[in-house]
């Protein structure tokens, strides 16, 4: 089908004098795995509920395939939804739960039974079809909710923190299953989560929200490597922040001063002029620690403040004179050099490693 994109146009929700969602415009192409990521209270669930039709937008409009659906009630939208806490009907067995949306659509036998079987197979629950939800584990209930939301082949599947109640290991498994399911079905998934790892590992695209506003949306890679604001840089993964003052250009490279040191930064933004204050975010894994200074680039001296061995990598905290404490990581197996508190050490990073971010905190 051509152009079945979901388009949000300046959609907003105001409760009293609190803006739960400020005017937001997004286009979610058909078949995309789209995540709404943000801390609690960021408006992500409200935005999802507006897409689902449970919350009426204060302003703005929703289009599906170019057709306005803003005023359609939830039952007219043909979206599937997996709720936080699953919302399984406690008085119905697994099979009856999955049958419910088919009953609503008046889908007759034997088609109904066939679809139920397929849906339960999809989530590997055929053997539990006649159990009541309360006799199932959290992970199993989550799958029932998924089967129930998929059995009527909705155009869009909305998921509200579907893995929130699962323990860490199970969450990893179900993430994989969800992703495989998405690839298999080609249904648009809109996924609300506060878990950055979940959003990064599963989604085609992520919108980061805060205080009812979408700060940035893009592929996980774009968001992680090119965060536009300090909040995004900090919320997705970890970042060290450096504040400095532009001192000039050296060829195509920006030179800035931070704590008395002259540092270099690769940037395409030519609008920066000397004297301007900038904030840079640099990921811990992009900083390299060496016993002595060797070569060009950005070098800062410091002393080891603390370190922790985390198996996969070593986390190191270095106190620098120029920019304060800096966190960095290095692969756990590379260095058997003794890490001693207060030991002098040199830090180095590529001028392309940090990104200049907007200070929005």
């Amino acid at each position, binding site marked *: 089908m051509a152009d079945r994109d979901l388009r949000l146009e300046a959609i907003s929700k105001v409760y009293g004098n609190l803006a739960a969602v400020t005017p937001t415009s997004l286009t979610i192409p058909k078949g995309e795995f789209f995540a709404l990521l943000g801390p609690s209270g960021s408006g992500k669930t409200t935005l999802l509920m507006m897409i689902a039709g449970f919350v009426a937008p204060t302003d703005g409009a929703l289009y599906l395939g170019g057709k306005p659906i803003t005023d359609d009630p939830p039952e007219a939208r043909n979206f599937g939804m997996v709720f936080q806490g699953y*919302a399984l009907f406690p008085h119905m067995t697994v099979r009856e739960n999955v049958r*419910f949306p088919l009953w609503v659509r008046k889908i007759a036998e034997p088609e109904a039974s066939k679809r139920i079987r397929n849906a339960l197979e999809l989530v590997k629950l055929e053997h539990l079809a006649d159990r009541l939800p309360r006799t199932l584990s959290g992970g199993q209930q989550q799958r029932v909710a998924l089967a129930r939301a998929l059995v009527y082949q909705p155009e869009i599947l909305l998921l509200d923190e579907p893995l929130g109640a699962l323990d860490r290991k199970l969450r990893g498994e179900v993430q994989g299953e969800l992703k495989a399911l998405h690839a298999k079905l080609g249904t648009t998934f809109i996924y609300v989560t506060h878990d950055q790892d979940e959003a990064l590992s599963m989604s085609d695209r992520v919108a980061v929200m805060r205080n009812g506003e979408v700060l940035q949306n893009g592929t996980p890679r774009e968001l992680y490597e090119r965060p536009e604001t300090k909040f995004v840089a900090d919320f997705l993964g970890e970042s060290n922040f450096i504040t400095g003052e532009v001192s000039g250009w050296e060829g195509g490279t920006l030179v800035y001063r931070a704590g008395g040191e002259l540092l270099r930064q690769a940037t395409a933004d030519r609008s920066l002029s000397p004297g301007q204050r900038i904030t840079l975010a640099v990921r811990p894994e992009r900083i390299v620690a060496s016993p002595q200074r060797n070569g060009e680039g950005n070098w800062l001296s410091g002393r080891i403040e603390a370190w922790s061995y985390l198996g996969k990598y070593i986390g190191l905290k270095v106190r620098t004179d120029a920019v304060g404490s800096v966190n960095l990581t290095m692969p756990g197996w590379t260095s058997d050099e003794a890490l001693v508190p207060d030991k002098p050490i040199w830090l180095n990073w590529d001028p392309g490693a940090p990104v200049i971010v907007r200070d929005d905190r």
Partner: protein
Amino acid sequence: MEGRVSLEFRIVLLAAWAALCFLAFPIFVAAPVSLTPERFLSFPKGEISWGHYEAFLTSDRWLASIGRSALIGAISSAVAVIVGTTAAIGLWRISSRATEYLRAMILAPMIIPPIISALAFYRLWGQLGWLDSYFGVILAHSILAMPYVVITVSASLANLDMRLEQAARGMGASMWQTVTRVIIPNIKVGIASGAIFAFIVSWDEIVVTLFIARRAVITLPRMIWDGIRDNVDPTVAVCATLLVLITILVLSIQLILPNRKLPKSNG
């Protein structure tokens, strides 16, 4: 230490038994009186008689009043259940400040003293021409019984996850389908206990009935009232004794029935 606990326990036990005896006291009066051979309310002296039982069970007036009360109770509780459940679901769904005021209004018939309600019904029904009619009595009983349904159903709804309704709507169910297939099956216990309360309210309602009914609609409580006031008839005691015995019988059956599941709330 142990002696003190045990003394306290004994006092509590004694108080509990005293309270139980007090609660059971009416039956200790009604049962002997019902067996009196005399033609007026009195304790039998030596000789007992089943004559009043025969009179009661063959009296068209008594049996008719029982049938009438049962009918009025059944219809009033049905009306109260339908309206009360609908109201409770609506209040639960919307749940705002305004609905809390509305809830207080709906519960008013239970809070206002019966005599005040009786006066109000009397005036209004008089103007509407509903006095001494089945319609009038049933409507009044329905209004009086509805708060009990609203309370029990609301209690059931309080345990129900609001997202169940959203889930059903999201899957395409209409409001009607959602209410009948999802909400009601999960609040059956509240509806059933509401229905029982509503029936009982109607079954032994006397104050309002006295005001709004004369000759055409004589309910069982009205018969008992007349029996005591007008002719001090021991048949009243027979009626009371039988009602208590039936209640005990029903409760005993319920307790004795093997493996009977207790109503479970949905958590």
